[in-house]
């Protein structure tokens, strides 16, 4: 332990033990416990206690329960547990009967403080830390803790109940693993007594018939099988399995979720996965007797298992497919023609669940769609994957939701009414439809997919969130189509679709709801990025009003929309698709060029998002060598750097530095690489002095130096990296001579020092190349970089600071030298 901390510890312990100085900040105590835990991981707890007797005093103080606040009591219980985790320290604390006092029957159990959940939780967590060695097991038995743990299972605080259940598992495992018992049979005698009492308790709970008790017992078992993979867990299961499988025989299974969790936890355990126990049979039985909603998560879990019989996987997959099969069947003209596992016909409970109410129908369909989506993304998704039928079922679900399905059957009619304008299902189905784009489908299905997507994009009834999902799904399908056909071979669906799409986009860009305008712009950006080069796409886009509308949205009242419009315009302009500034229909209007308009946004927009977007666009343009930037680049850059250096948003300034970096890299030209198979350079490399003069002209240097002392760390870091790059390329060891004694350099240095001290008003002076080189050499950029690399709170997070803070909080440090971070 840090000697400084050792020095502060007695004072802190005194403060903690003093009931007159209540510790109000719980987080400090938590941090303190974390620190002790770290310390005891590397150091001997015994030594620690011997060297710092104040700690033992603090713990003994906690035994005077009436004087101690519940916070400190809980803290002491947990702290004692941390120390007692080491066996020798445990013995040491036992000698003073301290542990028995804290955790035994004479402890807080009978006191009013026990009613405070944090005290009960502290008691459990203390024992959890402590129960690591055989002596601990005996201690637990001796102090009667096990019975208390049983009762805490049903605690009113869920945190306490859950922790109690974890502790029970730990004690059980400790008890059994402590003995070298060769074989555990079903008779009581084979089991260590402590384990026996726990198993007995579990048996009793499972038999009780009361749902809460059964659930608790199942949770304990789930945790046990999840954590311990020793052979004794199998013996435990052999003993308890009849009681558990009994639960499945009831008409309705009340603890379905817990049972599913238990079986899945077992199936994941290597102990059961490979053994010849009848786990797979039980799982199959469970799948068939749970209600459709309950069976869903279990089926998903089964399908995610690495080791599992194929038949079971098929059965589980059927469970997930069934709601969609029902939808298909309800929509089918001829019953039984769906091709998916029989839906309504063979499984009336499924139809009942679907048709019961909107909420149950939506819940079931959403669950099924989400699970199938999750499965599809897995590397070992179920085979054969019924892509076509899933496509059809999803499209049909969407048609039911939009009211465009015209079913014949009565079930279809009811489903139509239940699902009509159900936004939840629409979102889930569109998400899933998007995922299905990873596979292909026959022409007919793909046509259906694009038709339903267009219907949703077009419908005024689509809510903003649904529309966003529809945009996402459309993008995924367009991408997958173009991937499948290759870029030179236009896909038969895409072109007609795009022609229909742009009128819809026009309408969406004019929507009064800003979320709609925003997602339409985002979609447009993606579209342009991928297809901006295709002649058909360009033609369709330019024939529409979309570019003009996008430009108009640069003035949108909503900041998010302006930001998206900036990004979209940037992308359109990159591809040469933006509206020409002097359109014939607006001859009188004042027209600015797009770069000027974006610069205007950068200077005047009151919100950060559009300004950030502008900087990203400029960076992108510069990288791509966009023609809009090429003409009069230096003057334009100078304006940008001037504006951006005054920006109040640090992210905008960081973006500005990124732009500066790109500009610098382009000005410097490619670095000399000794191994490059260099073509003879078209233009001779620019001299360092010329580079620096250019940088000076565009105000980049002043911006970078100013940013170096920025109060926001990321800005300073970025600037530091930039200047390091500049120094490496322009002022390496030799080369251009610096002018250390130059009076101008002195002025600049003085100005920089003033800036560092926070006086940003001082002018920098003229930055001639010699002065810059001199400054770059003088500045300790590496040192600055190292300082900035440390997180800003590295000082404040040290244990010493923690102790000081805690002492300062109660005024024990004298004066008020508190670290006020």
């Amino acid at each position, binding site marked *: 332990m840090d000697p400084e901390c050792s020095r502060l510890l007695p004072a802190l312990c005194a403060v903690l033990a003093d009931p007159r100085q209540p510790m109000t900040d719980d987080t400090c105590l938590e941090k303190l416990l974390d620190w002790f835990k770290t310390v005891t991981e590397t150091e001997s707890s015994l030594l620690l206690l011997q060297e710092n007797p104040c700690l033992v005093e603090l713990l003994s103080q906690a035994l005077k329960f009436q004087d101690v606040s519940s916070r400190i009591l809980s803290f002491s219980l947990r702290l004692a547990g941390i120390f007692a985790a080491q066996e020798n320290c445990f013995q040491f604390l036992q000698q003073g009967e301290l542990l028995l006092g804290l955790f035994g029957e004479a402890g807080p159990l009978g006191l009013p403080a026990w009613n405070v959940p944090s005290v009960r939780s502290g008691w459990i967590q203390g024992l959890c830390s402590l129960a690591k060695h055989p002596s601990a097991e005996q201690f637990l038995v001796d102090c009667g803790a096990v019975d208390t743990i049983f009762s805490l299972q049903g605690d009113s605080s869920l945190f306490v109940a859950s922790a109690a259940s974890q502790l029970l598992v730990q004690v059980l495992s400790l008890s059994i693993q402590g003995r070298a018992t060769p074989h555990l049979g079903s008779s009581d005698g084979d089991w260590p007594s402590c384990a026996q009492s726990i198993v007995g308790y579990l048996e009793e709970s499972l038999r009780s018939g009361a749902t809460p008790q059964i659930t608790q017992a199942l949770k304990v078992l789930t945790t046990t099988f999840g954590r311990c993979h020793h052979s004794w867990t199998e013996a435990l299961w052999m003993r308890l399995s009849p009681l558990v499988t009994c639960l499945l025989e009831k008409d309705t299974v009340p603890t379905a979720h817990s049972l599913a969790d238990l079986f899945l936890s077992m199936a994941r355990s290597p102990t059961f996965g490979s053994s010849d126990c009848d786990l797979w049979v039980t799982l199959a039985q469970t799948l068939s007797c749970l209600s459709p909603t309950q069976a869903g998560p279990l089926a998903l879990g089964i399908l995610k298992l690495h080791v599992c019989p194929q038949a079971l996987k098929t059965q589980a997959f059927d469970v997930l497919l069934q709601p969609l099969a029902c939808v298909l069947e309800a929509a089918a003209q001829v019953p039984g023609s769906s091709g998916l596992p029989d839906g309504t016909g063979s499984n009336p409970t499924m139809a009942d669940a679907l048709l019961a109410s909107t909420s149950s129908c939506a819940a079931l369909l959403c669950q099924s769609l989400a699970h199938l989506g999750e499965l599809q993304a897995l590397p070992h998704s179920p085979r054969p994957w019924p892509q076509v039928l899933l496509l059809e079922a999803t499209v049909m679900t969407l048609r039911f939701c939009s009211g465009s399905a015209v079913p014949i059957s009565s079930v279809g*009619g009811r489903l139509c009414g239940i699902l009509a304008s159900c936004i939840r299902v629409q979102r889930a189905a569109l998400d899933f439809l998007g995922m299905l784009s990873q596979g292909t489908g026959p022409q007919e299905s793909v046509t259906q997919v694009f038709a339903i997507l267009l219907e949703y994009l077009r419908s005024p009834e689509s809510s903003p969130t649904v529309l966003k999902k529809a945009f996402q799904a459309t993008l995924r399908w367009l991408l997958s189509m173009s991937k499948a056909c290759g870029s030179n071979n236009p896909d038969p669906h895409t072109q007609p679709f795009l022609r229909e799409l742009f009128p819809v986009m*026009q*309408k969406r860009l*004019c929507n009064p709801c800003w979320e709609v305008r925003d997602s339409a712009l985002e979609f447009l950006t993606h579209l342009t990025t991928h297809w901006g080069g295709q002649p058909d796409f360009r033609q369709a886009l330019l024939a529409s009003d979309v570019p003009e*509308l996008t430009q108009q949205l640069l003035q949108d*009242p909503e900041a998010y929309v302006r930001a998206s419009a900036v990004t979209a315009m940037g992308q359109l302009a990159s591809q040469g698709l933006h509206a020409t500034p002097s359109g014939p229909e607006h001859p009188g209007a004042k027209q600015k060029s797009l770069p000027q308009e974006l610069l205007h946004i950068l200077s005047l927009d009151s919100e950060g998002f559009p300004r950030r977007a502008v900087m990203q666009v400029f960076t992108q343009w510069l990288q791509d060598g966009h023609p809009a930037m090429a003409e009069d680049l230096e003057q334009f850059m100078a304006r940008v750097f001037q504006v951006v250096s005054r920006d109040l948003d640090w992210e905008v300034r960081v973006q500005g530095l990124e732009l500066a970096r790109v500009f610098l890299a382009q000005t410097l030209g490619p670095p000399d690489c000794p191994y490059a198979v260099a073509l003879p350079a078209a233009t001779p490399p620019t001299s360092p002095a010329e580079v620096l003069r250019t940088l000076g002209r565009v105000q980049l240097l002043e911006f970078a130096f100013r940013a170096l002392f920025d109060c926001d760390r990321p800005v300073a870091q970025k600037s530091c990296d930039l200047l390091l790059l500049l120094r490496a390329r322009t002022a390496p060891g030799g080369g251009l001579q610096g002018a250390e004694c130059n009076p101008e350099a002195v002025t600049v240095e003085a100005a920089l020092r003033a800036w560092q001290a926070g006086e940003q008003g001082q002018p920098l002076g003229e930055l001639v190349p010699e002065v810059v080189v001199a400054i770059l050499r003088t500045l300790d950029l590496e040192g600055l970089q190292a300082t900035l690399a440390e997180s800003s709170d590295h000082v404040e997070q040290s244990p010493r600071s923690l102790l000081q803070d805690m002492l300062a909080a109660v005024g024990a440090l004298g004066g008020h030298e508190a670290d006020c971070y």
Partner: protein
Amino acid sequence: MKLYCLSGHPTLPCNILKFKSTTIMLDCGLDMTSTLNFLPLPLVQSPRLSNLPSWSLKDGNAYLDKELKECSGHVFVDSVPEFCLPETELIDMSTVDVILISNYHCMMALPYITEHTGFTGTVYATEPTLQIGRLLMEELVNFIERVPKAQSASLWKNKDVQRLLPSPLKDAVEVSTWRRCYSMQEVNSALSKIQLVGYSQKIELFGAVQVTPLSSGYALGSSNWVIQSHYEKVSYVSGSSLLTTHPQPMDQASLKNSDVLLLTGLTQIPTANPDGMVGEFCSNLALTVRNGGNVLVPCYPSGVIYDLLECLYQYIDSAGLSNVPFYFISPVANSSLEFSQIFAEWLCHNKQTKVYLPEPPFPHAELIQTNKLKHYPSIHGDFSNDFRQPCVVFTGHPSLRFGDVVHFLELWGKSSLNTVIFTEPDFSYLDALAPYQPLAMKCIYCPIDTRLNFIQVSKLLKEVQPLHVVCPEQYTQPPPTQSHRMDLMIDCQPPAMSYRRAEVLALPFKRRYEKIEIMPELADSLVPMEIKPGISLATVSAVLHTKDNKHVLQPPPRSTQPTSGKKRKRVSDDIPDCKVLKPLLSGSIPVEQFVQTLEKHGFSDIKVEDTAKGHIVLLQEAETLIQIEEDSTHIICDNDEMLRVRLRDLVLKFLQKF
């Protein structure tokens, strides 16, 4: 209790409720869809309309050619438009005591009912309903009267002729009862019969029932009505909305515990969500104007237009429409915009609070101030000087048969740059456009109907739990175009009773109780006796006095009072003589104890026989029979009065007297 259904239009209802001794007309809607069969009335001479070819019968008979014209395959009556009135034959209108109006759209037939039918009752409506209703009527009269049409067609109405006409004229119902529009004088006379009421105000009708208007959330001053007596409650729900628009929110709680809930005026477009439609409206408007086209919005001068203007107020800047002029043309445009600002107490909470700032509750005031919205009484006059294109014009009438809208359709119909956007749900837009075909102008249909949809109805019914629901037959089955949508109908238990035009329904509940008041001095004299725990009885001798449907029990006049010889006997004093009444008896006779008592009193040889209704006690020696049944006891003995009285007194010992 009976319901006379005079209108077949579910959103323009007209029903008469006979409840206790009152006859109450519920709403007075005018079905204007009949006007769709007529040619439009152009404000400016239209060569196209006047040169339409005549239509003649297949046999070449041309006697109808003055009356019927053909346009793009449809046949129209070339005459002053006529309206389909509510049934007036079903019930004598002079017997109607009151008319309750629920909103300004549902009172357009009022002059037809209150004038020339012998109606002498009162009409109840809220102030905004009266004022805006007046504006709607004024506009209608103005639209029709300013384009005088010499011709009034009637030949085609002949039943034998009508049969031969093409659809939809052939299928038009009750054409003989169709009437031309009323005059302003009739409007004024009808409206003078309206008595203003406020929400939750209780109005006594002849002491028999109490009627109360409740906020319905649909339009300014729109109301639902509760009609209740002491033991019965009928709720009349008409044109209600749960959406947050400009009016005060709907009062649902007061509809609870109704015996009958009469449900009319649900949304006409159950599949369209008003929010989505507003979005569609705005984006189509913006796109048209951007491309240099004009937008025409056929609308009523009040109602949804306030919400549309508010929505546009927020939208025009974002859509770059700040320089586009918005024109609102109606003879009552100015009054409508001004009225909306002064009915603060009838507005939703948000708008009410604005008044205290003080700010105008609707933002259209600012649109007018900044000259973005201009309003004119008609296209003549100032408008023609200010008119600038591209622009957006709001004007009536939504049927496209009369009003300034006719002119704009003729003017803009030929260019595909222009768009007509239908927002009012009352008329089928295809039928409305039929006499303008072929039309190059774009047509967008985004009906905005904020009235209750079926999901909201089913929630409402669950909430207010009426015993019986009565509704127009259209609501009891899915719409004909979407017959699979079982969700688009009223689903309740017991199933709703449906009505159709000209039907009389006996409402399924019987009145069982009537409230009677007891005068305090009479009540003082009563001596209740507890016959069971919680139940006390007392006999009352009194005079039942009934006046104005109120029943009062008054103490009987003292019978001993000698009538003064000199004074002439007044009729009211002539009350029947009150005999001294024997006490009433109650209780039951326990047979075994009765037999024991008989034995104690010296009767012997007693035999008891059980019968279906009770017992017979035989006193064989005395040859006497006592028949004890649940509600009677008979002593049958031969002429031995002494014995009978003895036995009677023994029986009476077991009974309570009061």
